[in-house]
């Protein structure tokens, strides 16, 4: 049995707790939250040991691994405390709110050989895994461009404050929503070397962004674009999709299906053929031990638990890859601050003088 503690009992924390509690090889040795009524209800009705103090949970319940699902601003301290005690960590996304913090945690975990993972569950969605498999196989030749999108109905009107509406606490669409797409895109493409044209629009929120638009530059002249909007009511729930163009074809995927168009000269994987190919989640998805909100949530914890069991530090979705996401987010924030790089009024000037690009401070984000 692997002894696990669950920290933070919001939507994700409760869901992780339920999945782990149902896992045959896991013992949830304690849960921790600041809301005492939640702890009271759980303790009385399920018998789980509850803690309102994180330090006491680590001290008394002695978990081998913790799942951290607290508001994002608490991640750094909590994760570091666990790592320093040689406890394996599964942390909800985003790992941290700064690139430096993410590097620090990734470094610390690597130094100590601990198992880490961040809740970027798209890496455990069967359709997105199939895309990865196709890309690694070289099915669409040299990848040239990727489009990563996510839309959903999260913030549909101006509203009151929670930590999610505060920029400094890791709220906003970029940290909370677009992070998933960014993570998926660099899983396929590698770490971006730069970003440009970033816009982080405010639609309904007063302090934070409700969308994220950006161009990502990758090695070898490859590019990517991110288009995310969490104020889109036309989607029933968060919908993430990717389209990838290559010299030998194109792949489209969302949670439900993979559509792959392979050209005649493509290197065609077994089971695929030239032209259009369709694969549905019903055939791609592997069974899980317990289902709550989607196989991917179970599968990501299964992977973590298995790695903890084997003491295997290397694996899918570790801190190092999450740090790439955090760094990309930091680049996007900086880029968005600069505004447009080419202005209508300066166009003639640019063309005739062919000047080296200048940093422009003319255009500031509307207050």
């Amino acid at each position: 049995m692997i002894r696990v503690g669950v920290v933070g009992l919001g939507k994700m924390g409760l869901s992780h707790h339920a999945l782990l509690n149902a896992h045959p090889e896991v013992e949830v040795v304690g849960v921790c939250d600041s809301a005492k009524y939640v702890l009271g209800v759980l303790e009385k009705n399920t018998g789980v040991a509850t803690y309102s103090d994180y330090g006491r949970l680590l001290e008394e319940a002695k978990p081998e691994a913790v799942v951290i699902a607290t508001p994002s601003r608490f991640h750094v301290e909590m994760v570091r405390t666990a790592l320093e005690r040689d406890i394996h960590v599964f942390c909800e996304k985003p790992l941290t709110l700064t690139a430096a913090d993410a590097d620090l945690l990734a470094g610390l975990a690597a130094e100590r050989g601990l198992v880490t993972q961040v809740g970027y569950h798209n890496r455990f969605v069967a359709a997105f895994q199939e895309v990865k498999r196709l890309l690694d196989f070289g099915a669409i030749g040299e990848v040239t461009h990727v489009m990563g999108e996510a839309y959903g109905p999260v913030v549909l009107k101006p509203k009151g404050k929670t930590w999610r509406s505060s920029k400094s606490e890791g709220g906003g669409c970029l940290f909370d929503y677009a992070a998933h797409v960014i993570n998926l895109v660099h899983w396929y493409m590698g770490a971006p070397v730069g970003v440009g044209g970033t816009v982080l629009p405010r639609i309904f929120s007063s302090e934070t962004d409700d969308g994220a638009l950006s161009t990502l530059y990758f090695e070898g002249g490859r590019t990517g674009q991110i288009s995310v909007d969490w104020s889109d009511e036309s989607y029933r729930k968060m919908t993430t999709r990717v389209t990838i163009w290559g010299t030998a074809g194109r792949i489209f995927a969302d949670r439900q299906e993979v559509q792959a168009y392979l050209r005649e000269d493509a290197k065609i994987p077994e089971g695929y053929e030239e032209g259009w190919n369709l694969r549905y989640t019903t055939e791609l998805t592997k069974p899980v031990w317990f289902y709550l909100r989607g196989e991917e949530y179970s599968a990501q914890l299964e992977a973590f638990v298995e790695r903890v069991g084997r003491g295997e530090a290397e694996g899918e979705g570790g801190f190092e890859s999450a740090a790439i996401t955090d760094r990309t987010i930091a680049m996007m924030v900086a880029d968005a601050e600069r505004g447009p790089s080419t202005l209508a009024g300066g166009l003639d000037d640019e063309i005739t003088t062919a000047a080296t690009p200048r940093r422009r401070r003319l255009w500031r984000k509307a207050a």
Partner: protein
Amino acid sequence: MSIAPDAVGPAQVSSATGLDRLLFGDNQFFGINHMSEEKARAQAMRFREVEAVIDVLDAAYEEGVRTFMCTTHDRIALVCDHMRANPERYSGFAFYPGMPYAHKYANAVTENGMLGAVKRFLPEEGLFDAAIRGGASLAKKDVEGMTTLLIDAEMKMFQGLRTPVIFLQNLVVDLLLGLGFKDAFRVFADHVRERYGAEPGFITMNLPLLLRVLDEVGIEDPVVCANINKIGFRMCGGLDAYEAALREHRCRAIAMSVYASGAIPPAEAIEWVCEQPNIHSIVFGASSRANIRNTRELVASHWEL
């Protein structure tokens, strides 16, 4: 059994179980399709107006499929209004509501926190009474009062309509099951029986485990609804575990997702499901009279309807 196109066919109630054998689901009306976002969107467009939903329900009714197993989505309230306004026409119609409509709660928990979400969904009517019951239940750290309040809030739209079975949705069932919050099933069952004279039902993606736990808390011969399909799609524990669980536990099982969102050809899907042990009913979704009739005829070739 074949019926004339215009005739109102017989309702398929199994006298042995009191459960209809063929139930009409509502996923198609809300743009839910587990295989394709495009299909889901096309359906959402097609059923934009509640009249389009009612047309399909009418077709189902005329084909003898008279139980509507539905969520407590706001739009269902409009369907309820229509049924209430035409009591004679729909005298044989029954709702099997499934609650809660999960997305509104999930979003509310993210927005308002756990306590805020609960407060948001307390019934407005009798607010004073509700607040006291709710307040006291939190202080006692007892979920019972809160749970029953939320059930009543969800049931408001069905007032005056027949709801012989009331389901707890899979997201909640499976969350409680995972947490080991077993008494909540008992609370739900008791309240649904006492207040609504209805059979409690439980939707799950983890049927073998749920049947064990319902046994443990003494809910006998429960009505349960789960994905049961030939390819084992979303059947946690696997096909063999499902078969064993269905044989070993006395229960009234309703098979859903029998076509696995279209991954299995209809005839093959229905033949397989009808051969499984202890399955009392099938719930299916369709958007046209032709598909409703096809499914009904396929099932009728295996089961006596």
